[in-house]
């Protein structure tokens, strides 16, 4: 597969390692009263769709950026690639 890195352009997927669902960005609040359950859901539950999937890839063989890639798991068509840091900030992650 080819992943269009937002800064480096098209790169072979073999330069990356795959982590999984980009939902992993949304690490729960450890101070919540339901924290243990929240973390368990965060760690163990996945949608695993046959179709459009937002997922995390690490450019280990390149610039060491984490990327959020939107990919159709049945056709491998990739429709968007963003720096994960940008996505994380946009979706509320900070310190």
């Amino acid at each position, binding site marked *: 597969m080819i992943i269009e890195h937002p800064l*480096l*352009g098209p790169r*072979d997927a073999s*330069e990356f390692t795959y982590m999984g669902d980009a939902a992993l960005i949304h690490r729960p609040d450890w101070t919540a009263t339901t924290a243990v359950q929240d973390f368990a859901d965060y760690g163990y539950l996945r949608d695993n769709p046959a179709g459009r999937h937002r997922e995390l890839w690490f450019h*280990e*063989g390149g*610039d060491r*950026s984490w990327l959020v890639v939107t990919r159709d798991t049945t056709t491998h068509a990739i429709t968007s690639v963003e720096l994960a840091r940008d996505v994380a900030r946009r979706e509320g992650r900070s310190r």
Partner: protein
Amino acid sequence: MSDISARMEPLTPLGTKTPKIDVFGPVTLSEVVDCALASFSARLGQQDAARNVLMRFCGSALPGPGQAVLGTVTVFWTGPEQWMVMAPHDTHEDLAEQLKALAAEAASTTEQNDAWCRFDLKGPNLADVFERLCPINIRASSGGEATRTSIDHLGCFVIVGARDAITVLGPRSAAGSLHHALVTAIRSAI
């Protein structure tokens, strides 16, 4: 017996006192040890200050993704707000410290002198060699490109100075394997 208080003598990545040079007809493969390296990463909120320091140090605008600015001081892009600086070891052995002194709180610098081994290839038809080694679109590179790639399972930087001058930086501990891969590709392609 050796004087254990005298200055320690370095060895090359290939494990000898002098760097190795191989000649294959018109193509030369040279191990280069007079090479100091340092990572330069801008700190959060300090990108402009950090960039200014680095620009003054290398004397030109900074390279963008996939690019290198070549000279006695060479700078190439390695990640968002991160560059690698390369300079002669003899005059810049403390390169990381020099840069840190200039950058202060604006950037983090890390010595990388001996994290890497360096091999320079010079000669015609180098693209024929590199298309046996890594997925870089080498024929579209004519000078000023620096790409991180994989050569025989080793994470390397390939810096194209010109079509007939290409530098490879690889993990120092695997210098022997990298050298072997380069020699094999040269013999195969040329």
